[in-house]
Each structure stands twice: as C-alpha cells, then as structure tokens.
C-alpha cells in the first residue's frame, strides 16, 4: 500500500509487525524513567499505526514522543518481532521536518551546522598543540564533544598516541554531521566534503576516531563513501588501543559503560574490555551490560531537546555503578562521559573517564 509519508514506504511492514507484546518496556531508558507508555517503542509504533491508518496526522502533538528517543536500540535488541524502532523513528522525524513539525532544539542543531562547523556553534577551534593536516599514517578525528566539551579526555588520548609513537595527524575537522540524520535532517554535504578532502589529503590509510558516533557515520553513511572507496579504514580508538600493553595497572574497582554507538550499533563489546582487563584486575560488570547496557540518555538529540529527562536517565545508569560498587567508570564515548558527569551527584564518589583518559592518568602516575 502506498503511504502518504516516506516512513510508510520504507517501514510499513515493520510497524505492522510490532505485536504490542511490550517486551521493549524492559529496556527502554525513557520508559524506565518516566513510566509513560506513550514514550516507549510500543507506544510509538501504536501511534504510527494510527498515522498509517489515517486517523491522525504527523503533527506537533506527536513531537513529545517521536522526538524523545535516544535511538539507543535496546528495544531493537529485545524485540521478538524483529522491529527496529530507532530506524523507523529517524525516518518519521524526517517526514515531520518536511511538514514543518520539529522540536526547536533539533531545528537549532541543523541551523547551527549551516552557520558553523560544530554542533556547539563555537567559532574558535580548540588548539590541542599538535600539528594539523600533515602527511601521516593515521588521522585522529576528535569529534565535536571531544573538541569542545571533553577536551581533557582528548588531550589524554593524544598523549597516549604520542607515547606510543603513532604517526598521526589532526585535521581542521568539522562536525561529521551524522547526528542530523537522527533528528530529522540530512548530513551536511559541505561539511562531509570538507572532512573527506582533509582526510584524503593526509594520505592516511586509517582514521582513528575519538567518538564512536563519528566512526559509525564514516563507516555507514553513503555521504562518506569516498573514504572507503579510497581504501581508508575507519576505526574507533578502542579498536586501535586493544593491541597495546602500556604496562600500567590499577587496584581500583573499575566498571565499563557500553556506549550505544559502539555496543549495540557496532557490536564492539570485547575490545574495550580487553583494554580494561589488562589494567584493572578488579573489574566488575554493571547489572545491564554489553547488548543490554542501559543508555546514558544523551543520544538521538534527547540531551538537547529533553535535557531534564536526559540527565535523569544518566542518573539511573549511575545507580548501577553504585550497585556494582565501582570506584571508576570507564566508557569509550565522550558524549556518554559528558552526560554521566553532568548527572553525577556530589555524594557519588566514583570517577568517570574515557578509557584512554584513565590509561593516560595511570601512565602519568607511573612517571
């Protein structure tokens, strides 16, 4: 059946196949926080069924639920019927934007990336005291959060790369703009072109990204296919570092938070743990881990659009850190670090770092 909206053409069968069993309730971070079924994947699929039946329109009344999904894909992982709600929701958001219905925070993000080169709209790029745009074996691509919000973590990663004598260069990078695809817009071609030109000009065979989302974007989005066509390999820093033993250890109790973008979306669970196992014999898993890991609440535009809930979701994740008795939480995503740190209560004494940041700290302590 030909639908009125684009999402129907692609996903009509999937929406219909949702049997409303409700098993997604067990894992949805938004439902877990709000206990409001309209915000869960099942609720969203029911709403979309009514849209497809012509009972309701994709209008402003629906933004509160359709724009409030972190696209963490826990529901996809849990769904017995094989429905992939985040992919459907991303397509629906595009339909909504087409019709002039959008959350203002998401619109703002698109506007910022038309006028600026990063999601924060900052004009002065951070100087990481490293050479840029030179010929090198590797490009290290930092990402917006690492450049403008978690610059200490980035500095630590660069220190590690230096310590390992890796032949890398930074570039005058701009936002990969992959996130726009999640919030109803399309990747900004100008930005994509600029990143690709800069990467290819270095002659690097491999791009190491500090951000798992950038890695996903470069690897999976057709707008970046020129990289693959040129034989450039794109990996996340955790995949790169897993082969190095830096010879440092901690006796602290350490846990690991699987970022959705690296875990469920890229199936990378073991590499970060390999790194951590080497440095932290006292490793503990949180109750929800690997494919079942609870989202930090930052993804899918939710941090910008529904900040209060986003922080509250991060707080629920941190409760599991306490439950596990960890002194250090490591993760592989600057965005997760940022959101979790913002949510951390003063009474919570554990520390939150990226794995590389923690590694570098141990290196510095060891002198």
């Amino acid at each position, binding site marked *: 059946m030909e639908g009125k909206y684009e999402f129907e053409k692609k996903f009509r069968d999937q929406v219909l*196949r949702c049997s409303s*069993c*409700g*098993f997604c309730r*067990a894992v949805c971070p938004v439902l877990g926080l709000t206990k409001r*079924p309209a915000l869960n994947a099942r609720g969203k699929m029911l*709403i979309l069924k009514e849209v497809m039946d012509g009972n309701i329109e994709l209008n402003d009344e629906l933004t*509160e639920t359709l724009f409030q999904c972190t696209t963490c894909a826990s529901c996809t992982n849990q769904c*017995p019927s094989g429905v992939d709600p985040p992919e459907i929701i991303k397509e629906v958001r595009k339909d909504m934007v087409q019709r002039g219905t959008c959350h203002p925070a998401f619109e703002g993000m698109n506007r910022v990336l038309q006028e600026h080169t990063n999601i924060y709209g900052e004009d002065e790029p951070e100087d990481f005291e490293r050479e840029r745009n030179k010929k090198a074996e590797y490009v290290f691509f930092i990402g917006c959060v690492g450049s403008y919000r978690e610059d200490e973590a980035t500095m630590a990663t660069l220190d590690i790369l230096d310590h390992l004598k890796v032949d890398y260069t930074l570039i005058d990078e701009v936002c990969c703009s992959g996130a726009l695809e999640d919030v109803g817009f399309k990747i900004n071609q100008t930005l994509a072109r600029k990143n690709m030109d800069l990467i290819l000009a270095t002659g690097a065979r491999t791009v190491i990204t500090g951000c798992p989302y950038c890695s996903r974007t470069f690897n999976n989005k057709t707008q970046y296919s020129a990289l693959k066509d040129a034989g450039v390999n794109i990996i996340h820093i955790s995949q790169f570092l897993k082969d190095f033993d830096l010879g440092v250890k901690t006796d602290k109790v350490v846990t690991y938070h699987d970022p959705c973008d690296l875990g469920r979306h890229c199936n990378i669970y073991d590499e970060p743990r390999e790194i951590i196992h080497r440095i932290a014999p006292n490793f503990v898993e949180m109750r929800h881990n690997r494919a079942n890991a609870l989202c930090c609440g930052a993804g899918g535009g939710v941090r910008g659009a529904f900040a209060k809930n986003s922080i509250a979701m991060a707080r629920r994740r941190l409760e599991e850190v306490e439950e596990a008795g960890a002194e250090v939480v490591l993760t592989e995503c600057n965005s997760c670090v940022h959101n979790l740190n913002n949510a951390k209560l003063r009474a919570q004494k554990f520390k939150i770092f990226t794995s590389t940041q923690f590694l570098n700290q141990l290196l510095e302590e060891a002198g």
Partner: protein
Amino acid sequence: MDTTIKQTLMEIVGSENFTDSLIDLIAYSKDASEHRHRPDAAVWPVNTEQISAIMKLANREKVPVVPRGAGTSLAGLAVPEQGGIILDLGRMDKIIDINIEDRLAVVQPGVIYADLDRALSPHGFFFPPDPASGSVCTLGGNVATNAGGIKGAKYGTTKDYVLALEVVLPDGRILHTGSKCMKSVSGYDLTRLFVGSEGTLGVVTEITFKVNPKPPMNSTSMATFETLEDAGRAVSEIMYSGILPSGLEIVDQQSLTAINENTDLGLPEVEAMLVAETDGHTREETEFQMKKIVSIFKKNHASTVKHEDDKEKAEALWTARKSAYGVAARINNNLFVEDLAVPMSKVPDMLRAISDIAKKHDVKMPTVGHAGDGNLHPVICFDGTNADEVKRVEEASVELFEKVIELGGTLTGEHGIGLAKIPFMGLEHDEISMDIMRSIKRLFDPNNILNPGKMGLEE
C-alpha cells in the same frame, strides 16, 4: 469526558500524574491482544488513597476505570473497551517488605516480576509463577490474570502464592483480605476471589505473597518424537511417575518447521519435541529425577534424547522452545497467542486437533505449551489486512475452542477471558455459572464502572 471530571482527577493525583494527551490515549488503547479502544484520560496514582478518591469520583459520575500494569495482556484485559479512565499502576512500584523469616514478600501492584525475583535472589528465594513476560509484566497484572508460567506443573500459579491483598473497591472503600499466615480459613476466601478477576471487582493496591526457597540445581533434557501420541504418552507417564519436573514443555511440528524456515538451527521436524527440567538441592537429586524422565522418553520411542546437567549446555536444549515465540512473531503482521488447557492425558488429542484445524482452515498455528499441566499456546499468525484470512482465523478459533471443551478442557489456562474469549464463554460456563458470576460483579460493582465489558459479564 466532562472537563470537571478531568479537573477533579488532576486535583486528586496532581497535574503531573494526569494526562489526556493524544499520544497517551493512543498508547493506552491497546495491550498485547488485537483489541483496541482509546480511553478518555489516564492517571498515574501513587498511593491507595488517591485510588480510593478516583474510584469514588468514577462511581459517582459512572465513568469506566480500567486498571493497567504493563499492558502485556494477550486477551484484552487492559483495553478500555468503553473508554473512561486508565489507572496506570506503574508508578506504584515499591517492594514494601521482604520477610524471609515469615516467607513473605509485600509489594505494590506496579512492581515488575523480574524485580521481585532479583530482590529475592540473594536470600535464596523465588516467586515461582514465571510468565514469559516476566521481564516486563507487573505483579498486580499477574494477580489480576492469575498468571502462570513454565513452572506451573510443579509450583502452581499465582493464586497458590497470594496470601493477602489490599483492594480499593469500586465505591472507593479499602478492603483488606487474607492474612500473613501460611494457613487461614477465616471466613470466605476473598483473596482468591480477586486473583484472576481481571480487574473487574476491585483495584489491587498491595499484595502479600508467599515465596519459596529456590532449589539451586537443575538438570535438563530434550527428546524428539515421531508421533504426537508417543510424546503425549511420555508426558502422562512422567506426570504420574512420582516425579514432578520443574518444567515440561512441548514444541509441535508447525513450530519446528517455522523455526527452521526462519533460522539456521536445523531442528528435526518431528511431530513433537519435549523439554524437561528438574530442580533440587543436589546434583544427585536432580539427576535421579531426570534419569527417570529420560527412561520414560526412551520407553515411549523418543527418536533422540539429549541430557545435560551443565547450565550452559542445557541452554542449547531450550533453544527451540525459547525461539518459538520470536519466530512466530515474525511470520506475519498479526498474532493471537492463544491459551487453552486440557487434562494432561488429552494433550496429544488436543495437539492432533490443532494440527488438523490449522490444515483445514489453511491457517498457521505453531503451538508450544506447558505439557506438564496441559496448558497449550497455539500462536495463530495471520495478516490482519487480509479479510479472507481473518475469516479463516475466526472459523479456526471457534473450532479450536469447541474441541477444547469437548476434551474436558478450559478456555484459558493463564491469560484470562478479557475481550478475546467472550464469544466462547457459553461453551464452558452454563447459565447458572454465568448468573453467579454476574451476581458477584453486581455485588462489588453495581454501577459496572470497573473494567466494564470484560469476561462476558454483560448481558
């Protein structure tokens, strides 16, 4: 709904716990059944007093109220068929007390089954009736449907564990039933009356459960049978052998074929597969029981028998049973997870009938079930947009339940009547029985405001 009613609801629960937004009304219009109807408003009460005030208001204004947990009902129990107010109990999710000395757990109705299980685990205890939706379903819902599960044959269903209830009646009064004692015959058993009453008599606001010590060891075996009759005989023989397996599950040929068509598991497409589990405190105990079961499998011509006591290897034997629902859910757009029970000795007859009915009406009905207590789940997979197929499904359903009753069975073992089984109530219950049920409903809810339209109680 009158705006003054909405205003009063807001005053009772606070505006943050009230909604009449379109998105909420749609989300509350359906449960895991195929029934759909929007409410007019929904509230998230946080205590018994609020629920009492809501019921007083609804009773006065004659507005339907539908209590709801996780909305995982497969029979439409949570669908607001006549509109009105959804009472979402999900925010009343506190485990009030775990008292191992008295073998008790006291919970609010919105506690999720898995959360209680997790809380009991460090004490070496568990709450045995384990529905397949255990990771999401709420205990209030389990009480309302008298939920069962895989462990039914040995451990019974929810009704065997509810000792006491706090219930808000349709007129707003707060009733306390039962006691914290393991034994009590003090007056009518009002507790049991509410268990399985599908939210038609009162709103359960606090539950006192008996909990069981959890045997730490398991043994598992799997057997395939060329004929349903052999499998059926094996089930009967096991159940009167003196051994009570903690699980005895059956997977039929349609399921095995469907699993093979959709996965690379390469299962033998025999007429029936049985999976048995025993539990106990020592390996000797579980193995003693399992050896007896395995010998019964072999005696009844099992074509293959696999037996594991290692936990991880045992998981592999459960694969077919555990993947059956997921596969059925992908076959087509719509599915009825049917629920029926027959006396244990009739399990093979019923499975044969299911297979014949499926063929006759050209309908897909892969079936799994809790063979150990005669409770079967044919999963009818169909395309709801195909009118001809829908008609065939309806005809097949009628024949299915006629056969159930003919075999001395019952319309539902653990999902309830709700909306889905109303057309069949007359097959199982005569006029006297229906008259008594309706009288009970009138006694508690003379204005018919609490989950109206369910269980075939309306004349």
